[in-house]
């Protein structure tokens, strides 16, 4: 019987964007069991809802996470609008879709860069982040902030994008597509990348479904769940293509995210074609009374905002269940049986965004 030793991984590790701790039980160089541990950046956001009015809580909800911030704000606003039965103008819905898809682009490009850094390909990491600057420049020109956009509010959006800016954006998307095609070609075709990713961290379709894998982590194993198919916002008027892969290893998860870059640019083009003229907000009076589970698709998977109001200006409860919280049990399953040197690559392949997991 070989001796088992316990090696701590994290919370400080060069490959992790945010702190998570794993206790790896090793036999020689093979991982036998994993105990995850979170709670390093718990800020107690959900308690703050009792002291901030529901219209001001948008600012708090947006700042839950730096990478996926726009969709947190938009989902919170949509949840409140569902409870209060507010119909948001069509132009605002399309604008929210455009900013959400740009947010998804920036998040996937950030992840592709970090992933390349994790298996040692620094040149590719820098190249991907150079392309990501184009997305952030667009965000800053239209919203005022590179990372925290801050344009959602209950009842619509706070800023507008003019028609000629939208035309220029569609032309710039062609350049962006061209650059992303060159870079994703390296991820998907290059042999040295394939050697690091193929058959590493495999999880079967049944395991992924029953353990709660959502987003690209689940879609890389064939679990075809995409919350955009629910049809919230303007997504019921757009054609959403769900990308899946069947192998369930790190290469499939990477391939799913790389292909989703192009579905996002396609959705932005569709939205820019269909966007109508009109107002961008409606006046909101009163307070929410009721509850709703608002589900949306973040870059990492299915996000659930549970909101409960009782008629006063302060909500009773705001519960945010982020996709990474749901992806931690599949991560435990993926790590069992892998080599120690593959652990950073596998942990990064679920796209851990721990700051929104712990709020």
């Amino acid at each position, binding site marked *: 019987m070989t001796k088992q030793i316990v090696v701590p991984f994290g919370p400080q590790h060069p490959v992790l964007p945010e702190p998570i701790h794993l206790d790896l039980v090793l036999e020689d160089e093979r991982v036998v069991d994993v*105990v995850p*541990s*979170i*709670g390093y950046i*718990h800020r*107690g956001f*959900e*308690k703050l809802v*009792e*002291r901030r009015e529901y219209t001001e809580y948008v600012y708090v909800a947006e700042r839950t996470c730096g990478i996926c911030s726009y969709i947190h704000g938009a989902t919170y606003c949509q949840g409140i609008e*569902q409870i209060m*039965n507010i*119909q948001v103008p069509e132009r605002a819905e399309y604008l929210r879709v455009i900013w959400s898809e740009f947010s998804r682009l920036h998040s996937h490009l950030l992840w592709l860069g970090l992933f390349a850094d994790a298996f040692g390909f620094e040149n590719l990491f820098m190249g991907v982040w150079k392309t990501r600057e184009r997305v952030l420049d667009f965000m800053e020109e239209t919203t005022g902030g590179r990372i925290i956009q801050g344009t959602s509010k209950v009842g619509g959006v706070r800023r507008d994008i003019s028609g000629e800016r939208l035309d220029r954006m569609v032309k710039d998307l062609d350049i962006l597509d061209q650059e992303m095609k060159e870079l994703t070609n390296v991820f998907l075709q290059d042999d040295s990348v394939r050697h690091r990713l193929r058959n590493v961290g495999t999880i079967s379709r049944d395991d992924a*479904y*029953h*353990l*709660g894998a959502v987003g690209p982590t689940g879609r890389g194993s064939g679990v075809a*769940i995409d919350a955009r*198919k*629910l*049809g*919230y916002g303007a997504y*019921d008027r757009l054609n959403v293509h769900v990308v899946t892969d069947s192998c369930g290893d790190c290469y499939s998860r990477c391939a799913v995210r790389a292909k989703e870059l192009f579905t996002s640019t396609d959705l932005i083009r569709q939205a820019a074609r269909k966007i109508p003229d009109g107002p961008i907000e409606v006046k909101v009076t009163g307070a929410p009374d009721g509850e*709703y*589970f608002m*589900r949306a698709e973040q870059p990492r998977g*299915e996000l*659930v905002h*549970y909101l*409960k109001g009782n008629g006063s200006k302060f909500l*009773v*409860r705001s*519960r945010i*269940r982020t996709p990474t*919280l*749901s992806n*931690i*049990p*599949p991560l435990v399953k993926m790590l069992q049986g892998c080599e120690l040197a593959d652990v950073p690559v596998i942990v990064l392949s679920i796209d851990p965004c721990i700051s929104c997991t*712990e709020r």
Partner: protein
Amino acid sequence: MTLPQQTTTTIDVGKLIGGVERFRNEGYRLVQIGCTKVGELYEINYCFDLDYRFENLRISITADTEVPSISGMYWNAFIYENEMHDLFGIQVRGMNIDFKGTLFKTAVRYPFSQPPVTVTKGDKP
């Protein structure tokens, strides 16, 4: 556009395991387990989803009721049940991975079941 209305089925704590087992046999996946403090009672929502159909089971308990764990049927429930215990103080019996209160280490024990405290600028912590 208006999304479909969501229905919530409130059941007794004793019937929780039976209700969850029905969802497991039909192939639903667990979306989340969430807790809300309403007055003196705690409402716990168990959310399930199958092919974008959303179902919600709710139990309403007092602070000292012991809730059975559903991790026998859904292995990933441990992360939600430990979070519920650390933040609200709900006692859950039979978790598959029990962190015993160390998942979220907070300065105040069971912070979300305490009433909110107002701190004005200039107060020393």
